[in-house]
């Protein structure tokens, strides 16, 4: 299907485990982003990527790792999950720096 998808949609894990959230877009957009959404904070940028093999930190990168070996995929890994990483995670993409940003449906992650 065309668009931007995230998987899984829901994930429950335990403290200390590694978790990878997947993001896939079919538009060949250059830019991709990872945000987390928490009540009272709105959306906060974790990492972003301007192109394949180019990534940069956002506002809250600690505890997260990203990679972008292919234009269409931008996985987010929590190397050792903590309870404070319980959140809803959104992936987004856009064609250029000036274009509209399109969001995926989100992944609700709970860390016990």
């Amino acid at each position, binding site marked *: 299907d065309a668009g931007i998808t995230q998987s899984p949609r829901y994930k429950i894990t335990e403290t200390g485990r590694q978790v990878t959230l997947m993001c896939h877009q079919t538009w060949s957009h250059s830019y991709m982003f990872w945000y987390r959404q928490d009540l009272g*904070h709105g*959306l906060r940028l974790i990492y*972003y990527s301007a192109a394949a093999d180019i990534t940069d930190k956002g506002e809250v990168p600690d505890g997260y790792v990203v990679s972008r070996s292919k234009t269409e995929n931008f996985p987010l890994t929590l190397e050792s999950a903590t309870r404070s990483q319980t959140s809803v995670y*959104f992936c987004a993409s*856009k064609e250029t*720096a000036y274009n509209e940003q399109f*969001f*995926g449906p*989100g992944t609700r992650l709970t860390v016990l």
Partner: protein
Amino acid sequence: TQLLEQSPQFLSIQEGENLTVYCNSSSVFSSLQWYRQEPGEGPVLLVTVVTGGEVKKLKRLTFQFGDARKDSSLHITAAQPGDTGLYLCAGRLVFGNEKLTFGTGTRLTIIP
């Protein structure tokens, strides 16, 4: 410290009433966007304002960018249940910068 503050955080009004949501900052933005987010989905772009003092209308929604480009408002006329959702403002601090800073959000409920 949140760069973009939205008020009110929650708003519940009767169908047919008018309302205004505010997005304020002490920083100057090169552009500002408004998004609406429905439960279980990612945010969807409503409008982008670029020029200080700019006003844009989208049916019953009126968006204004402050003269100094530090604040914005969203006014809804004759609210309908379909307007229910989370409204987010997002600003771009530097022209051409691909990163957006999101506000804290206003959760709007329209009661039929």
